[in-house]
């Protein structure tokens, strides 16, 4: 399902979300090879186009909800909502990234707002959208706060990433919270 973002200002490029596919491989490799982007992600920077193609085929395409963040239909990042099963089906986990060239322009905030304002209608069983952000990732924390997520606390030693144990901040947005 495509979602079109409002234009922030006169003449600003159109932001949209659409499925990512193999034809996006070159744009994918721009952020996938960037240490600044992978720093707080679970994956290590990619070092071959083949690895990128495998990742798109095996992880991204089968994913239940994974979209490319696009500027004038060019993929400049990605945003996803992971599903849970059984007693945890009320929760979805939000993840997003942006090529570093596009940081600091409010784009991630716009993309998260787009997802937050449509995902609960799209997935009626979803009550809670949550995000777990590294304590050192201030930029990402600010994105969520601007969209209206609630900061619920710090979960200590929650993830092992690149051999180190990380504390994360947990945020949530409920279907009953004011729409962003």
């Amino acid at each position, binding site marked *: 399902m495509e979602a079109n973002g409002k234009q922030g200002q006169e003449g600003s490029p159109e932001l949209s979300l659409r499925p990512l596919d193999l034809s996006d491989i070159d744009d994918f490799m721009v952020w996938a090879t960037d240490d600044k982007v992978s720093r707080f992600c679970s994956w290590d920077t990619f070092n071959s186009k083949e690895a990128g193609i495998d990742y798109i085929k095996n992880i991204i395409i089968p994913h239940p909800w994974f979209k490319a963040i696009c500027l004038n239909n060019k993929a400049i990042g990605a945003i996803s909502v992971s599903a849970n099963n059984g007693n945890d089906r009320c929760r979805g986990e939000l993840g997003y990234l942006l090529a570093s060239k596009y940081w600091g322009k409010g784009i991630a905030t716009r993309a998260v707002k787009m997802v937050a304002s449509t995902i609960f209608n799209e997935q009626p069983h979803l009550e*809670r959208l949550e995000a777990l952000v590294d304590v050192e990732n201030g930029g990402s924390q600010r994105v969520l706060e601007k969209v209206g997520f609630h900061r619920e*606390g710090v979960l200590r030693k929650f993830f092992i990433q690149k051999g180190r144990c990380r504390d994360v901040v947990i945020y949530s947005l409920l279907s009953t919270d004011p729409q962003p």
Partner: protein
Amino acid sequence: MQQKVALPSVDLLLELGVLLVRVTLRPFRVSDVDDFMLWAGDEQVTRTIRWKTITSKKEALTFIKEVCIPHLFCRSICIDDRSIGFVLVIRWSGGDRHKADIGYGVASKYWGQGIATKAVKMVISEVFKDFPDLLRLQAFTVVENIASQRVLEKAGFTREGLLRKYTFLKGQLKDSVIYSLSSTDSNGAVDDEV
């Protein structure tokens, strides 16, 4: 002919507050079935845990044999070697095996005596010793379960936050409070590089 010695009644012992000294943990046995049914069949106990309320001896036997006994870490909380509750630790797998969840329940007759707190404290020392790559022990309680939150606080857990509409428990959507104990809380310094 030997004379039978009359032991003090449990009620008297409760009054004397000596029960904590006699709290032990051990694996479940099939022979625990009757004691098990007393608390695992009690809605007051099972309301706030994931276990289904046990309604027959057959169910109790199946549960003990198929869940409690084969479990990586499931202990009966005992007084005088009689089962009055349970405490278990569920380890995560793969990239999350540095984490584990703790859960517990005590027969309602024994509430308010510090028994769950004692059992949790006993498990903490055992589990960080047995699993040296464990860095985080966590626990979830539903927001209205104040008694369970006190158990964790008395056992030294840190309250990290209130997670809104976090999970379904017995078909109801619940806000949960999350607690954790880190390996460095409970032991001496542990290197966080893995």
